[in-house]
């Protein structure tokens, strides 16, 4: 008899046969906590013990299950090429399905999603806060071709509102038409999907998909790396019918066709690959293409980048449940960025922005942590504005 947990058990069994422990190398959570259970290998042993009846699910098992950033870094060190992140997401689903509660730290996020449609306890109307002056951009069903899907964190975190504004401005400068859902935009469900809360995710997915389909758009451009992964990989039906692009891919296309150009800049920058955009979706080149399109800009890579980039420590509910560990991971990344001698650390994900900015501030780093669209907007050449 097959079950939805067979895949997870298979991963665990394979890991137990190999048990090499290569996954511990560069695992951001294990590096900080240094307990064997907080590593993909340790979690696989936990899965095996739970599914073979050696261990009853308990509070500690839940803690271990949520001590993972789902960053996939270990999968690039894993001998057996095991899909540990997927297995850990399933482990969370399993624990909830057998009646274990979410961590108290995560319950607030879930309640907020149930009440407000976003994890940040903000009223639905706040979603359009960032878009002052863009009210005419409300999507017109049947007419709008490109939907700019902003996401909860970019539209509701007051420290990040410049990012969607910058992206909207870049699109305008390129003469690109786009539409917004504004207050009608709903959370993509990424947060609860990563927490293993399948029921709430499916509810959000259904509602969201219905709203997006009703607009008749042909293309969705997401600003957030998490929304991008979720819409393109976890909305199977929708992503078959509607093209989902991350803003970096879309902007790189516009640069390629000559519609988006930048002034020169004498600056040295480094780029942090967000896990959801990099390892999860394999978008590594588009953000670099964009940075290289600023002439005079020197892009220096950190010691770990692309597939092997260290995680910022901000994903999969870890920042909420384990803020201290999350911050340590982010500080490591800041230190890595500082070693390049770059004056700016650019990234393309709201969670990476939150983590890295907080970390830089906490250690008094002088490196400028900046979101890619905001960075590009500093140098964009805008024909419309020039004419004015």
């Amino acid at each position, binding site marked *: 008899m097959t079950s939805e947990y067979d895949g997870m058990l298979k991963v665990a069994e*394979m890991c*137990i*046969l*190999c*048990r*090499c*422990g*290569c996954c*511990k*190398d560069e695992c951001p959570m294990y590096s900080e906590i*240094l*307990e*064997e*259970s907080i*590593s993909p*290998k*340790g979690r696989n*042993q*936990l899965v095996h*013990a739970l599914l073979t009846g*050696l*261990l009853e699910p*308990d509070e*500690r*098992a839940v803690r*271990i299950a949520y001590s993972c950033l789902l960053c996939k870094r270990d999968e690039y*060190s*894993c*001998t*057996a090429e095991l899909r540990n992140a997927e297995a850990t997401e399933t482990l969370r689903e399993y624990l909830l399905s057998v009646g274990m509660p979410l961590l108290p730290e995560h319950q607030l996020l879930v309640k907020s999603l149930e009440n407000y449609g976003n994890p940040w306890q903000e009223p639905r109307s706040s979603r359009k806060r960032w878009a002052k002056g863009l009210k005419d951009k409300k999507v017109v069903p049947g007419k709008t071709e490109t939907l700019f899907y902003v996401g909860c964190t970019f539209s509701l975190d007051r420290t990040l509102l410049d990012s969607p504004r910058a992206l909207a401005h870049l699109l305008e400068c390129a003469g690109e038409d786009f539409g917004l859902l504004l207050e009608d935009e709903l959370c993509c469900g990424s947060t609860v999907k990563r927490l293993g809360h399948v029921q709430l995710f499916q509810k959000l997915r259904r509602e969201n998909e219905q709203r997006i389909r009703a607009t008749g758009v042909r293309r969705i451009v997401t600003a957030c790396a998490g929304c991008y992964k979720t819409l393109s990989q976890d909305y199977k039906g929708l992503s078959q019918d509607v093209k989902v692009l991350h803003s970096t891919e879309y902007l790189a296309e516009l640069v390629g066709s000559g519609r988006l150009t930048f002034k020169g800049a004498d600056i040295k920058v480094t780029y942090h690959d967000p896990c959801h955009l990099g390892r999860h979706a394999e978008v590594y080149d588009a953000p670099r293409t964009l940075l290289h399109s600023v002439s005079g800009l020197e892009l220096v890579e950190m010691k770990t980048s692309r597939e092997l980039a260290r995680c910022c420590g901000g994903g999969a509910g870890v920042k909420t449940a384990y803020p201290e560990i999350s911050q340590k991971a982010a500080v490591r990344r800041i230190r890595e960025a500082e070693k390049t001698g770059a004056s700016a650390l650019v990234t393309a994900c709201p969670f990476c922005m939150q983590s890295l900015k907080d970390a830089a501030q906490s250690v008094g780093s002088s490196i400028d942590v900046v979101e890619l669209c905001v960075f590009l907007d500093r140098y964009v050449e805008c024909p419309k504005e020039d004419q004015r």
Partner: protein
Amino acid sequence: MMPDSVKDEVKRQLVEALGERGLLWEKADLLPYCKDTYRVRFEDEYRYMPDFVVLPETTEEVKKVVSIAASRKIPLIPKGGGSNRTGMLVPTHGGIVVDTIRMNKLIEISVPDLCVTVQPGMTLKDLGDGLAEHGLWLTQEQGSLKMATVGGAISTSAFSRRHQKYGAMADCVMSLEVVLADGSVLRTGPKVLYTSTGYRLHQLFIGAEGTLGIITEATLRVEPLPEAQEVVLGFFDDFWAAIDAAKRVMASGVDFSGGEAYEIVDHSELRAPPDKKALFYALVHGTKEEVQAVSENLRRTIEGSGGILADHEVANQFLTTYTKQWCGARALTGYEDVLTTYVPMEKMRQYYDTLWNEIAPKYGIEPLPGEKYSLDVGKYRMAGGRYRLPKGDRVWERYQEVLKEIAALATGLGGSVQACHGVGIQHRDNMVLEYSDVALEAMRGIKHLLDPDNIMNPGKKIPEKE
């Protein structure tokens, strides 16, 4: 396992010594500490569970843990990166696993004296990164590099791919700090690489597998980062032709760092001629001039031995890929085990012929494709291989019989049961094949002197007296 009433009291004492952060006791946390990469009897996967795991950060904390254990005669299992494959970390007697992984500080570097003092839990990889900032390197390179710790590498007498020029871990150790079984702290000697005074106490703890004490600090010899490095790769008709070339290289006295010979599995990746079934590669490190001269010498010897040289680019790509996959290649995917015996060069052929033509069919073990023969080339000779475990009835028993026969073969030819992975529980009972009664009795005497109550990793390394 200790009774609950004792356990509660020990837990209270350990929390007092280390704080809650330094102690693990819940089953979900203990699971990964119930075994290392050794394949225990299949039905015993979770049989041996420690009572506690402690994660000390200082020598003082280790002392406190040892004192608590000593007062109750509780077994202590010192742990490093946890990649051991002979069962030396399996808590066969329960007790407390002392995970040194949080003792990961670099204490002192001396560039003029070419030495570094570190805590035992620092990984070789992190140590390498730290040394590089000072223009130094450890010189050691092993498959478990990414997770192996200094303490673990010393306690297992770790092998190194670059042993020909730089020696193995045992050759790098200058001085150790060790917490002994009674809680006292031993400094083995001055932090010098050479002295003509005293007994060489630090040597006792190299390869001791945690049976004599817990290493809490190590001073190691390091070297200046080499200016250049090179790999020279040649393809040969078969493994034995590659071995002949390796012998010639060693006889020439050329200063290469180390090398390997083995069978080729994927010809296309290496762009190897299809009729060439084996390869031999040698690593070279040093100044640019040295590397150039040594590499040229190696190329001449390889060609003079009938080998076909690989392109420079192919050889470098080979080394990069091999090194990247090396750590993972250690994994025992499926029901397999590896051979890492020490065999004298002149007996190598006899060893492999007996192994694969007589022992293998007798017990039903089979070599994995491309893993029938391999040799670490250099002064420390390790004959490798990988095989599928027997199938059918009495699997475990036949597996143990295979291990014993291989051990008897290697020692009978004047070699050693293990050149790399230590003894643990896997080879413990076969030590009688390698050491005389007098030698074993001397070892037991040393163990008894340092650990009279046998609390330091009991049941490992030395066979009990019959």
